[in-house]
């Protein structure tokens, strides 16, 4: 039993008897009233549907919302509704000015986390060539990144990933919408993945 399953059970998100259908509009309503991002496990537990059905309905809802003022935001296992990026100017007039700046070092670090997540501090520092402890703490404090998991290597280093706050701040509904890296580079990163991973674990 995973921690998430246990939490879902505690929150009463057990599958209801006979519930095998989930409509996109029901899912939209559920996400509309949820005060936090919901995990797919929670939704499946509430609706009593399997993973494939939920993925299908999420896909339908994403398409339905494409021309609307709200969007489906996906980050790993979690889902939430948020406003569309192009509605931001109007909303910022309602909510007030929201100046948000990041230093070049913070941007470099968050770019590495975004494209290589989950990633350890050792790999970030290897790419940047400088100590990144302070900037990582600053990004954690601003809730742009989260402690995702622990590596398996010596010392079990923390692996960082981006948060929902990151997606919201940068107007991205999914990590798939990140600006693409150069094609050759992307290929190289993929081929380097396993090798680099082992190096990181040791660090």
């Amino acid at each position: 039993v995973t921690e998430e399953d246990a939490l879902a059970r505690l929150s009463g998100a057990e599958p209801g008897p006979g519930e095998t259908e989930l409509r996109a509009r029901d899912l939209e309503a559920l996400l509309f009233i949820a005060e936090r991002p919901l995990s797919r496990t929670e939704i499946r537990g509430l609706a009593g549907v399997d993973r494939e059905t939920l993925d299908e309905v999420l896909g339908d809802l994403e398409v339905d919302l494409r021309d609307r003022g709200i969007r489906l935001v996906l980050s790993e296992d979690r889902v939430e509704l948020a406003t569309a990026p192009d509605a931001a100017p109007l909303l910022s007039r309602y909510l007030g000015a929201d100046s948000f700046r990041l230093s070049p070092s913070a941007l470099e670090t968050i770019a590495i986390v975004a494209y290589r997540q989950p990633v350890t501090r050792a790999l970030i520092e290897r790419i940047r060539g400088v100590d990144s402890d302070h900037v990582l703490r600053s990004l954690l404090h601003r809730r742009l990144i989260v402690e995702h998991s622990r590596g398996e290597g010596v010392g079990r280093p923390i692996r960082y990933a981006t948060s929902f706050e990151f997606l919201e701040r940068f107007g991205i509904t999914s990590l798939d919408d990140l600006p693409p890296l150069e094609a050759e580079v992307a290929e190289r990163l993929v081929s380097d993945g396993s090798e680099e991973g082992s190096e990181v674990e040791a660090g």
Partner: protein
Amino acid sequence: VLSVSLGDLAGAYLEAIGDLTGDRLRHLSAFISVAAQLILIKSRALLPRPPEPPVGREQEPDPETELRERLILYRIHRDAAQRLAARLETGLRLHRREAAAALAAGRAGVSGYVARPLDPDLLPAALAGLIAIAPLPEPEPQLVRRTITLAERTAVLREALRNAPAVVLQDLLEGTRDRVLAAVTFLALLELVKQREVEVEQLIPWGPIECRLVTGPAAS
């Protein structure tokens, strides 16, 4: 790498470090690591190398290739960071529903958008208003010194005995809740007994203490 002067590079780096405030040790250690790699690369490029690696010895990774790869990797992410910064600059962010905050703001009649900035003088005025309506603090209780003298209580006893042939001490002190007053009255009574002015009688323990003026030769 042969055209790069490591001395100039170190000088420029130290100059930049000199401008930094706070913990510079981490930056220095990072520089030492990079500089060591550059020195190794440059020395290998300058010095003659054996044409073939010794048989059976594992080929070491080429530091120049490693550094080049690392710099390429850095450049890619730096460019990605610039694209993210450009995206951030547009301000096209997402907003989520924050139910509790929205509800509280709605109840309080708060609007996030303020057309004109508020006058800072409003703050001290508001503080002054708050002070004006705040209730004054309760005065702290004060201890008042009270003096009860034997002379006062003796006079009371004499006055009581002047008007009656006998007085019961308990009756005289009836309604008195002040222990000090009772104690001083009792001491005054003892003083009058000592001076043979009054005689007392108590038939049973804790019973009434009856007091009478002494008459006859003892009184003189």
